[in-house]
């Protein structure tokens, strides 16, 4: 499951999947701006069939927080890495 998250992030940010580390955030990925963030959240909602609340959308600003938020929605995550 976290591979699918990384895959989607790679697609949205137009970077190779290997560049999405566990520490991925707007600091490590230069194309991760607020508009790309919207696309990312929309893509995640579509892929996992979930709906985030507004507060979750504005707070899930790095890879780890994304996994955490998905987990709270009942989306199973694989092992780290």
């Amino acid at each position, binding site marked *: 499951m976290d591979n699918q998250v990384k895959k989607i992030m790679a697609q*949205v940010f*137009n970077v190779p999947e290997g560049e999405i580390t566990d520490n991925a955030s707007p600091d490590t990925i230069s194309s991760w701006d607020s508009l790309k963030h919207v696309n990312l959240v*929309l*893509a995640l*909602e*579509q892929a996992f069939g979930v709906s985030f609340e507004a507060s979750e*959308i*504005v707070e899930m600003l790095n890879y780890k927080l994304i996994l955490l938020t998905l987990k709270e929605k009942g989306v199973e995550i694989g092992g780290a890495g």
Partner: protein
Amino acid sequence: MFTENNAELNLSEIIQKVDLMEQAKNDLPPLKIAFLHNIMIDPIVPYLKFLCFEEGFYPNIYLGDYDNVMQSILDVESSFYRHQADIVVLCVKLENLSEKLFQSFTSLSVSEVQEESDRILGYFEQAIGEIRKHSKATILVHNFEILAYPSFGVLDYQCSSKQINTIRQINLKLVDLINKYENAFIVDLDLLQSNVGYHNFIDRRYWQIGKLPYTRQATEVLAKEYMKFIRARMGKNRKCLVLDCDNTLWGGILGEDGIGGIKIGKTYPGIAYFEFQQAILSLYHRGILLAICSKNNEADVLEVFRDHPEMVLRENHFAILKINWKDKVANLKEIADELNIGLDSFVFMDDSEFEANMVKNCLPQVKTVSLPNDPTLYRDILNSLGFFDSLAFSEEDKVRSAMYQAEAQRKKVKTQFEDLDEYYRYLEIEVDICSADEFSVGRIAQLTQRTNQFNLTTKRYTETDIKSFNHSPEHAVLYLKYKDRFGDAGIVGVVILAYTAEYALIDTFLLSCRVIGRGIEDVLLKACLERAKKANKQTICGLYLKGKKNGQVADFYRKRGFTLDSQDENEAKFGFSLEKPIFCVPAYFKAIRTQ
């Protein structure tokens, strides 16, 4: 490459695909789309780009500054105008344009409501008028989605001047407004919201976070709706629907169930096919050509069309019927040949995944729709496609299919004559050549946009262009009408002459492919020469501009006694002295009338 009608696009995948396509080298023609918006509209970009690439265009999308609509429009030096868009989309949402009407309706007096409505319409009048002054772009204007929960509750919609109906009336007035301008259209957001439902259309979360009003689904639906306009505007709207028969037009297999056993009628289960046929008939009346491509015994299928009491579609609705046991790819190619239109004008619908996949693979330029198992869905699938949408509807569109059938008749009869002149005499051809008038400008413009083969210069003109040529003393616009014993083809030829002090230039000379090869081109050219002579010109110049499909007319003028004055790889100029006698046209025409 074709996205199945309403199948949802996967956002992250299309973002990736768009990035790849933008990075790859290609020579796709550019398409510039500009958005002027008072809400955030960015999420639409990947969808729109993807659909543009799919349609064969390289998209160049300009997003204006947030809520800077009027400023961009009024400043002729703005980056908006410098972008020089082909398509301009005006996305103004009521919530941001008029807090009064949207949030505070219950506090307004009747006159305040009227004032605010007038202000809104004035805003659009100014916006569209100004854009039109400085740009020839196609203008698409969002109308207003009505609110899900009107201010006065159930009382609201009892009254024509309360909130819901005030918005509806503004929308209706917007329709009147855009009809005052050429090449301007409404994008009906209210209709789109109604199709997907308010909760699937408006996203309060993104609106509150960042003024992004639309859900991902709405954004996708919007992009697909823009594409309908774009396809029509760029001449990519489809013109012919080809249909299978078994389990498409009726339930069951004719060869097995017999004419009494197939399901078609006003009750279940035949009603699904009945409604589907009604939708297809509706397309027929819109000027879309229909054809059959079915693996069946021809006599059996014809019997159904002729004798089955519940059928909506009859034999005469179809321009071509290919009912045989050959493969459908070959049949489709033959249909394209016989109708003399490209395969990229076709939509093919078949319930068989096998047939659909074969056509998809062998003829990717055909839009193939593989119908699902449940026929209840057929009618909506057909209506949702939007591939046939055009931006004009003319008298010719109404009778198009009849004209193609008349052509089939002509071809059939031709085989009975040994002598071609005898055949042409038999046709009793009547030709009228007239100066353009207000009734013909639309069709004339349409012909300049659509005619590719017998078109000497392939210059594309809008109705506005033709009107201005018509009013100019330095131009003459002529059209040619064709009629014979099999039918009236209407306006099928156009000439535009441009005069200088000494000579006349044939700027445009074209004939619809329907009438090529009967000497009509000579009749039209002769009328050209006579008109130039009447205008006291001594010479007439014929121009040939090389286009993609007009190679056959490269030496049209030379063959008729013009001399070659100059030539390079893209164009050739020919001259003819009007002091020379004008050639004669064939004698087999029943009548040639020139006004």
